[in-house]
């Protein structure tokens, strides 16, 4: 009987402790929700992050679920509708969640979710063939101002997406009409690159890491990067800022959780992702994929997204996409 009382007391104590530690829960398991199919960018980000977290011992297990549909909209809807049962779930997403909410392709936007952190990112870049008459962004601007129809700019995504918005933003900063950008959409970055080398397009708007790998092949040159300062991976690539055009842009990837996630769990997720950056396991994954660490945890993430939404929204309205 005494034993039982002891056990009872112990149970009570442990319950109290667990209640008391509500402000410091331990995350042992993360279920990653991937809004696209296997092999894509979202898939790689989620699986890479999970791999680093488990190998570094920060969490015990990571599970993954691919839920494609609606260009990512289905997974967002699912996470919102099944919020209560998805406290263990993190959904990966990226800049398109901002753009697609603006264009109303997604009925929801990032404010309907719990923001955890922006974890990695990529700057944008403009690339020309190595033998192009355009030596820098200024040359491209003056050709564009003379006749925008003669400057075909390609990208690996649809009109109105990042690859289109970045040159429009840059031309606008140069005082030219961003509406006149002759944007040629390709369905993949590799095909856009082939279009650049074949002379079908004059310049290519693409992600910075992809641009670096192309420039390393010696066939093309980067004439503009949207970072604040030059990036170590390509010290010869000039930023738009240093050429006198006040444009920066980051295509981020990060994680979101269910809308009514308890604040202590949110804090734990933010912490666990924050700790990940110092581990060699993460460095291996990051280097393997050529990602750039751009860490925006918690509330900083909200500020960042709100700012991005404002800039992109204004530009898209000006271009007539909204």
């Amino acid at each position, binding site marked *: 009987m005494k034993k039982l009382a002891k056990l009872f007391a112990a149970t009570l104590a442990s319950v109290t402790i667990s209640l008391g530690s509500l402000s410091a829960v331990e995350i042992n398991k993360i279920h990653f929700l991937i809004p696209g*199919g*296997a*092999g894509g960018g979202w898939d790689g980000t989620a699986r890479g992050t999970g*791999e680093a977290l488990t190998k570094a011992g920060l969490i015990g297990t990571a599970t993954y*679920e*691919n*839920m*494609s*549909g*609606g*260009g990512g*909209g*289905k997974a967002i*809807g699912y996470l919102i509708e099944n919020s209560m049962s998805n406290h263990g779930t993190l959904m990966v997403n990226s800049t398109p969640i901002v753009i697609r909410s603006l*264009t109303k*392709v997604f009925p929801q936007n990032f404010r309907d979710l719990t923001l955890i952190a922006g974890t990695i990112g990529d700057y944008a870049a403009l690339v020309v063939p190595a033998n192009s008459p355009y030596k820098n962004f200024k040359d491209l601007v003056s050709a564009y101002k003379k006749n925008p*129809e003669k400057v*075909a700019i390609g990208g690996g*995504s*649809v*009109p*109105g*997406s990042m690859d289109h918005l970045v040159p429009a933003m840059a031309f606008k900063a140069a005082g030219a009409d961003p509406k006149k950008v*002759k944007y*040629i*959409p*390709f*369905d*993949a*970055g*590799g*095909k856009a*690159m*082939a*279009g650049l*080398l*074949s*002379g*079908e*397009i004059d310049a290519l708007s693409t992600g910075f890491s992809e641009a670096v*790998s*192309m420039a*390393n*092949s*010696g*066939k093309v040159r980067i004439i503009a990067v949207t970072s604040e300062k030059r990036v170590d991976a390509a010290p010869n690539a000039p930023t738009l800022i240093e050429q006198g055009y006040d444009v920066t842009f980051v295509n981020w990837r990060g994680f979101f959780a269910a809308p009514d996630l308890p604040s202590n769990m949110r804090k734990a997720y933010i912490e666990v992702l924050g700790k990940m950056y110092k581990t060699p396991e993460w460095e291996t994954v990051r280097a*393997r*994929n*050529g990602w750039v660490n751009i860490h925006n945890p918690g509330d900083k993430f909200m500020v960042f997204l709100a700012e991005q939404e404002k800039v992109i929204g204004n530009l898209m309205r000006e271009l007539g*996409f909204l």
Partner: protein
Amino acid sequence: MFDGMLLGLETAFTLQNMLFAALGCFIGTIIGMLPGLGPMSVVAIMIPVSLQIGDPSTTLILLAGVYYGAIFGGSTSSILINAPGEAAVVATAFDGYPMAQKGQAGKALTIAAISSFSGGTIGVVLLMFFAPALANFAILFWSAEYFALVLVGLSAISAFAGKGKVLKALMMTLLGLMLATVGESSLFHAPRFTLGIMDLQSGINFVTLAMGLFAVPEAFFLAIDKIRGKKGSSKKSQEISNLRINLKEAKAIMPVIARQSVQGFLIGVMPGTGATIASFLGYAVERNLASPEEREEFGKGSIKGLAAPETANNAASTGSFVPLLTLGIPGSGTTAVLLGAFIALNLQPGPQLMQDRPEVFWSIIMSMYFGNIVLLVLNLPLVPYIARLLSIPRSFLIPFVLFFAMAGAYIGQNNATELLLLLGFGVLAIIFRFADYPLPPLLIGFVLGQMFEDNLGRAMRNANGIQFIWERPMTLTLIISAAIFILVPLIRDWLTNKRK
């Protein structure tokens, strides 16, 4: 260059690398046989594992083996149960499955294996000697020419437009082109024809449509034929698993293999085309070159019609290494994934790769010879056993076919709506079959539809109109040949029908 080749030989033919090449081929073939997991997914799955090896040559040899192994294996389900798991093997089903129905499954699988082997091997020879020279050929085409090339590929439909079916075949092609417009295109920023269904926003999934059009009706008719008391193709298993090809047949397919190896390779070299269009073009060209009697056989179990796409798609897959290795441009989804592996290994594919890391460059190419032999040795002895699958009783075969179709539609998407779509397409296909509409043109139209629209849209955007058709000589030439390819057979059939 010869020093490089020798170095490559040395690297590729170490015991370790040979083992990994064989392992890659084996994994690729086995997974490639499953529907829904095309070469791209298989390679993507294998990358994290293969990076653990450490040696860049070995890793890439393994991945390349997985790639062409998957292409090799993809033809099996096309031939046996009319279930092409990937766009590049749709054309394989056109004649491979009718052959299997006639009880020649073993022969069909053998021809597919030999054609794949020859296409792959001749492709490697071309890759080895002409890769650097072909770099400029790879960037010859603009969207305008790709559009024209798609038109030539569409001419493959004429094989299904025989006797009184011309209009029906054209209607089916149009329906296929229309289905390809569902979802968001790469040209516009809005979803189209999705009926507000979110699952349709990314378009119709190829495997779901292919399984629904081909495999599901097959299961239905297997069941119905029994009820209707029709005798199926239940030949003796001895004949089914017979893989012998006679001298006459070998003579017939030899020139096809020779032509399609070169043609398929060249098409594969151009980024923006790839194995699918190579297989359709190969099919169309060989049909036009065949004698009138042989032409009648196309679509009904012609050995030439089987050898042509199988040779072409394997040669094209090898060809797609040219832009990757010499320019650093991935021409297809699979080579884009492979590019990721190169970068993870700190290698930059491109003109310098051959100079800086000749052992990597050449050992990948050299390992392909060995890999192709492995594939042949691996596959030929298995043919009788795989073919015997067809001699199992229908009550077991039907659920198997259905399971295969459903797994294919579901894997990769992880979306249960695909199963409903599969059922819908299946019912539609059964109705079309009863009404005697040919289904292959629908799938050809669908598969080529997106390339058709994208390239036409890009060319028009760039030229601000359609004047590119006459302003670019190469486009004009290709469009005229497409017109000849499509119209001549139709007129010829019409004339012969009239004479009768």
